[in-house]
C-alpha cells in the first residue's frame, strides 16, 4: 500500500501531466536541443514529445531546417529544438554549423542525444563530441526493439557510467520509453541529476600541448567558461563562428555567471 502511494508522486506517473504544446510557446522554462545521427528516429522522438508531425523519412539527412516545438510537464514548460541530423560536429557543412552553434551558443538546458541502439559505436562518435561541448545531456537509446531483434544487448548502466549522463532506452515508433525520457530531461534540467560527461583525451601529445596552451590564454580572457577545451579545439579547426565570437567578445557571454539570453 505504502509502496503504490509513494509512487503516485514519482514523476513517471505524472504522464497525464504531459501536455503537448505543438508550436504554441510563449514563455518557456527550459530549452531542450534534440541532436543525433541521421536516420535514428530523432524526428519521431520530437513528434512524440511535442505532438507535432514533422516528416520522418527513411533517408539520411531528412530534417534540413531546424524545427521547434514544445511540451509542458510537471508545471514546467519545455521548448524542444530539433537540430539537423549529423554524423559529426567537426566538419564544415551547414547542417553541422547549425547543430554545433546551437549547442554552444544557444546554451540549451539539456541536449538530448538520440542514438541508434543497433549502431551504438557509430553513434557514440557524435555523442562524445556533444559531451565535449555541453555538461548537460541525456542519451536516448532509440530503436531498442530493433536491437533486441538483432540480439544486441547493451549494458545501460555501464554505458551511463562511462558517459556520465542518463541513458534512456526507447522505441520511439512504439512510443516506448518516452515518459522515462521526459523524466530524465526534467532531472537534468532542474539539476537533480548532475552529469559528469566523459571528456575524450587525444593520444597526440602535440595536440594536447596545443590545446593546453590555448586554454591557458583563453582562461585569462574569458574566465569561467565550462567548455574551453572544445573552444580551443574549434579554434585550431579555424571555426569562423568561434573566431567571430572571440573578436566580438560574445564568447564571454557563455560563462555561467552571465544571464542566459535564449531561454528567457
Amino acid at each position, binding site marked *: 500500500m505504502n509502496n503504490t502511494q509513494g509512487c503516485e508522486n514519482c514523476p513517471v506517473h505524472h504522464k497525464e501531466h504531459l501536455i503537448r504544446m505543438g508550436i504554441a510557446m510563449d514563455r518557456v522554462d527550459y530549452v531542450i536541443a534534440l541532436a543525433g545521427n541521421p536516420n535514428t528516429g530523432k524526428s519521431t522522438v520530437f513528434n512524440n514529445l511535442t505532438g507535432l508531425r514533422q516528416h520522418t523519412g527513411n533517408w539520411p539527412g531528412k530534417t534540413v531546417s531546424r524545427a521547434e516545438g514544445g511540451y509542458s510537464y510537471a508545471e514546467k514548460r519545455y521548448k524542444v529544438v530539433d537540430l539537423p541530423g*549529423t*554524423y*559529426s560536429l*567537426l*566538419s*564544415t*557543412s551547414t547542417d553541422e554549423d547549425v547543430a554545433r552553434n546551437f549547442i554552444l551558443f544557444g546554451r540549451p538546458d539539456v541536449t538530448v542525444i538520440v542514438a541508434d541502439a*543497433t*549502431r551504438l*559505436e*557509430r553513434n557514440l*562518435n557524435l555523442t562524445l563530441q556533444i559531451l565535449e561541448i555541453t555538461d548537460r545531456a541525456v542519451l536516448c537509446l532509440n530503436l531498442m526493439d530493433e536491437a533486441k531483434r538483432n540480439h544486441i544487448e547493451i549494458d545501460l548502466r555501464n554505458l551511463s557510467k562511462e558517459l556520465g549522463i542518463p541513458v534512456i532506452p526507447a522505441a520511439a515508433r512504439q512510443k516506448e520509453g518516452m515518459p522515462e525520457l521526459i523524466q530524465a530531461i526534467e532531472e537534468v534540467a532542474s539539476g537533480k541529476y548532475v552529469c559528469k560527461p566523459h571528456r575524450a583525451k587525444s593520444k597526440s601529445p602535440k595536440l594536447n600541448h596545443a590545446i593546453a596552451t590555448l586554454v591557458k590564454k583563453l582562461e585569462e580572457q574569458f574566465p569561467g567558461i565550462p567548455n574551453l577545451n572544445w573552444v580551443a579545439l574549434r579554434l585550431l*579547426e*579555424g*571555426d*569562423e563562428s568561434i*573566431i567571430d565570437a572571440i573578436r566580438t567578445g560574445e564568447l564571454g557571454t557563455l560563462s555561467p555567471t552571465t544571464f542566459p539570453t535564449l531561454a528567457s
Partner: protein
Amino acid sequence: MVEITYIGWITGPALSLLLGFGVLMVLAGIFWPKYGLIALSRKSNLNKQRVWLEDALKFLFDCEYKKTACNLNSIAGNLHISTDKTARLLNRLRTMGLITMEDEANLQLTDAGRSYALRIIRVHRIWERYLADETGIDQMDWHGEADLQEHQLSPSAANQLAARMGNPVFDPHGDPIPTIEGAMPVHRGQPLSSLEEGTVAQIVHLEDEPYTIYEQLVALGLYPGMQVYVMDKTDGKITFAADGEECILTTLFAASITVETIQSKEKIREKLDLLSSLAIGESAEIAGLSPNMRGQQRRRLMDLGFVPGTAIRAELYSASGDPVGYRILGTTVGIRKQQADLIFIKRIKNEAS
C-alpha cells in the same frame, strides 16, 4: 516549275539551317568556356602590367622567405619577360615604394611591398585549397588556375571563402597560407636532396613550379605528409622509400621536395592494400585514407567511421557493379571505386578460424 522549287529549296529550310548553324557557331565562339571570346577578353583584361608587378613581388617574397639569392635576371626568367622590361618593372616597383634597390643584385622588399606580396600569396593559396577540397579539378591544374585567380579575386572575397572552409592554414602543396594580418610561420625543412643515407623524414612541401618537375613528383604519388626513408645517395641520384615504395630521383628533382627529418622510431609503413581490392564477403581493417582524398570527401568518410582500426566488409555490388556497398560499424555505405581506391586496408588474417 522544277527550277522554282529548286530555288525555293535553297532559300528555304536549307538556308535557315545554314544560318542556324552559323548563329550557333558564333554563340559558341562567344560563350565557350576557356577559349570563347568572353573568356579570352576576361583574360586579356587582366592588366598585364599589374600581373607582372604582382608576380615580381611574389617572386621577391619567395626569395626572401627561402633566403635564396634574387636578382634582375632571375626575376626576368621567372616572369618570362625580357631584362629590359624587368628593369623598367623594378624601377616602377621602387617608385611605388614597394622595394628598395641598391643595385641589380640587391633587391629588398619594403614593408608595403611585403604585405602586398603576402596578400597575393594568400589569395593564391586559398584558391588552391578551394580547388583541391571543393572542386574535382585536376591536381595539375590547381597552380595555373590560382595564378589567374590571384590577380582577380579580391582579398575580402578570399577571406570569405577561407572562412567558409574553416580558415585553412596550409595549401594543398603543404605551403602555409599567410593570415589576413600577413603573418607567416618561419620557413621550415630542407630539400630532400640534402638528406643523408638512413634518415627518416616527412615531406612537408612539393614545389609546384616548374610544371614538368611537379608533374613527375605527382606521378610518383608523392604528397605532403608522406614519410620517406633515404636508402641510397650516389652520383646525382637519390633512392628512397616513400610509404614503402621505392623511388629514384635526380638531385635536381629531389630539390623540389622539402622535408623535415623526424626522430621517430616508427617503422616505415608497409605497402597497403586498397579497399577496392576487397571481394564481396571479404573483411578487412581500415588502415588509413590516402592524402589524395581531400576536403569534404575525407571528412565525410571519417565521420562515417572510415578511420584506422575500424573493421569493414564488402557487402554487395550495385546493379551496375560500381559503387559497392561496404558494411562498416553496423551500416552499409555505398562507395564508388574511385574513392575505394583511396582507402587503405589491412586484410584480416585467418579469417576462416
